[in-house]
């Protein structure tokens, strides 16, 4: 067996709250292990080399969406990225478009909450009261699967970081926002109609701001069908508004 590869991990270091801190790239050499992910590499760096290195991991299984970052320029989840799939030089930058907390840690949580509030991204039930002791309303099994397909978004922020439009226009809702609207508009339990959704995304910060660069679709770690969904939403919103 050949000797383990040594990889160079270049990490952006910066604490915006510290006036003395200047953004800089710091390099760490790591010996690659079998099955090593960026989660394992960064944890090793922190435990053995640099305890001050800030980054966010929670589930480390590609489920929670905490650890999105730019890996050699591409937004992706660090936890399920295997180092063997990357060149020996790996540059890690914090996800752009979100407030930097420190190093690789960004505040996606507040951004996503503000988005949800702005888009009223929750199910607006038809009845204000549900009698939960009664048998539930039936739903077409295929429709339930289709809703789940869009419900799989983990709000990791990769689509926002990959989106040229979002990078230029801070108020653009991004694929994450458009997908949420598509998800609720598909759901017969939601009382809102296209007119209501038009109120939320029928402008240039919403679906008409999308310039179809489709990087969102290409980087989505959950492989959500964003290309089709945004087109679908655009058609419906064009009808609702025009």
């Amino acid at each position: 067996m050949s000797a383990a590869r040594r990889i160079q991990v270049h990490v952006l270091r910066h604490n915006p709250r510290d006036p003395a801190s200047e953004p800089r790239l710091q390099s760490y050499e790591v010996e690659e292990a079998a099955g090593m992910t960026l989660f394992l590499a960064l944890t090793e760096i922190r435990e053995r080399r640099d305890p001050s290195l800030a980054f966010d991991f929670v589930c480390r299984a590609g489920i929670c969406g905490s650890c999105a970052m730019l890996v050699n320029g591409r937004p992706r989840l660090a936890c399920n990225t295997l180092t063997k799939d990357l060149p020996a030089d790996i540059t890690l930058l914090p996800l752009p478009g979100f407030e930097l907390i420190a190093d690789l840690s960004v505040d996606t949580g507040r951004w996503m909450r503000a988005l949800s509030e702005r888009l009223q991204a929750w199910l607006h039930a038809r009845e204000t009261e549900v009698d939960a002791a009664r048998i539930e309303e039936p739903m077409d099994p295929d429709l339930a699967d289709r809703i789940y397909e869009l419900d799989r978004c983990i709000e990791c922020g990769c689509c926002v970081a990959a989106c040229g439009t979002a990078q230029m226009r801070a108020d653009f809702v991004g694929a994450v926002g458009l997908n949420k609207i598509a998800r609720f508009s598909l759901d017969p339990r939601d009382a809102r109609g296209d007119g209501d959704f038009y109120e939320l995304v029928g402008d240039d910060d919403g679906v008409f701001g999308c310039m179809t660069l489709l990087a969102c679709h290409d980087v989505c770690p959950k492989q959500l069908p964003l290309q089709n969904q945004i087109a679908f939403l655009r058609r419906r919103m064009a009808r609702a508004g025009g």
Partner: protein
Amino acid sequence: MKIVYSDVLVIGGGLAGLRVAIGVRRRGLDAIVLSLVPPKRSHSAAAQGGMQASLGNAIKGAGDNEDVHFEDTVRGSDWGADQRVVRMFVETAPKAVRELAAWGVPWTRVRRGDREVIINGQRVTITERDEAHGLLAQRDFGGTRKWRTCYVSDGTGHAMLYAVGDQAIAQGVPVHERKEALSLIHEGGRCCGAVVRDLVTGELIGYLARATVVATGGAGRLYRVTTNAVICEGIGAALALETGIATLGNMEAVQFHPTGIFPAGILVTEGCRGDGGLLRDATGHRFMPDYEPEKKELASRDVVSRRMAEHIRGGLGAQSRFGPHLWLDITLLGRAHIDRNLREVKEICQSFLGIDPAEQWIPVHPAQHYTMGGIRTRHTGESTTLRGLFAAGEAACWDLHGFNRLGGNSVAETVVAGTIVGEFVADFCESGVGDIDLPTALVRDAVAVQRAALDALLASRGTESADAIRVEMQQAMTDGVGIFRDAAGLESAVGRLEALLLRSRSIAVRERADGPNPELVTAYRVQRMLKVALAMACGALARLESRGAHFREDFPRRDDANWLKRTLATWRNAADTLPTLDYEPIDVDAMELPPGWRGYGARDYRDHPDTARRTAEVQALRDRMQAGDRREVQAALMPYRELLPARLQASNDRLEAPA
């Protein structure tokens, strides 16, 4: 010093915490949720396979009801559970799952007509009923007699967390993200908030509340290999322990999930086996029927994990550079099924193992998964010893799970306990006992204590590394407090942990800035985690029997005569190096289902002296009321319904079971 006031402070932004907050908000009270991470990133999202609720829509679930769910859960718990709490839970679970359906969870639905499923390795055609078409579907899970697990493909926790998280936003529940509670503020046996550290700025803030709810999840990170997220460090339990008043129940009851992927420990759902997946050894042999002819791969998790570990010990594990493991074979389920119902599993296999589970077997090994123990509470969720402190979900020992939790019961517990405890918290706040009269000096003192502790760490000239201690702690727990336990191993673990606790008082951090300082966080957390680890190890060492997930090789029998009781751990003084253990008896005479054989696993156990009498009593009553309604029989055996909040007492409707 900043003080934040609210009616209710919820520590933890997962499913249980959010559901409590929504509940009290709807009662017109203010609730603030503290969360280490954005709430939708909580570990609840990692629950894959589903949530148990006895709806009985799927044909293989027909005939299911609260009684069957109750018995399965009690048997699963190895009679460690509080049976009244189990009753409250099984009664509320169908309501909770239906409420979630109304909140938008895209539950997988029943499709009418024939479909092929794999049962016991055989392809079988089952026919779903017309009248069930479009209702919530159920899949099979371990330790259950009916298909009861409601699911959303294999992203159930994610879909639930998003629906509940969205409702919290809709209700305007404020979530204070990246905030960590360092201690509970209490005086005169009354908890009234927490000292909280802002993980971004390092600022300490006093949070004052009439009721404080701990919903911080489990403690998997006390172990080296766990399915748990990196934030599941048992800090909620530690907060309670450090009050010196609140107790932790059954901390030695730690569940190991049979199918963590090897070696990373990432979970693949029990749904794999529920849907027909098989466990195989190095030779490809399906070994579980040899050990467990009744339930095979679908015995309860403690039993399956133990059998797997036993099989590996017997030299039959597949060898790899990381050590021996076994195989989970889901290839027989077919690609279409995997793509629709096990897609997270598929993604995990592709990302982390580089394999296609429709073609190849998955390397698995039992991994720490769940903490049955936690903050000991009454059925209301309130601590039995510290007023105003509540706990819900995995952080609590409510005690729904006893010594072993059934798959699908934890994600159900989060929302069920969240719903029930939320009501009791609101009742508490609305009643006179909910009032607090607190001098701010108390908050100032509590903050000062934490400030001093942090400053001491930042200024320490000690020589110990927080990360090194953490790794050693995880190793000690893995070596001594694992699936198989014995006196020697446990004594060694206790000794190692106690030494580590002493060493942890000399931790120095290299990075001396406050603010976003991960090393400082590790340092103060590991000091707390060690206390929880000691509560587990000491509880395990003291319990001279085997029950559920707690298996003593030197005491392999369940011993109801001596050990039908709950372990209670407290940490009396800050200077102590070991917890104080106490016991709470479980009353056989109050049981609806007296102790017996679980229906799987060992048949060899020692009865409690009251068991025979109670069993006869129960049987006599059942015989007498043979013609009666099952609810009346139940009420005569063990009344519980009035314990539930009034709005949860209604009987659940379900489809008629086919004759």
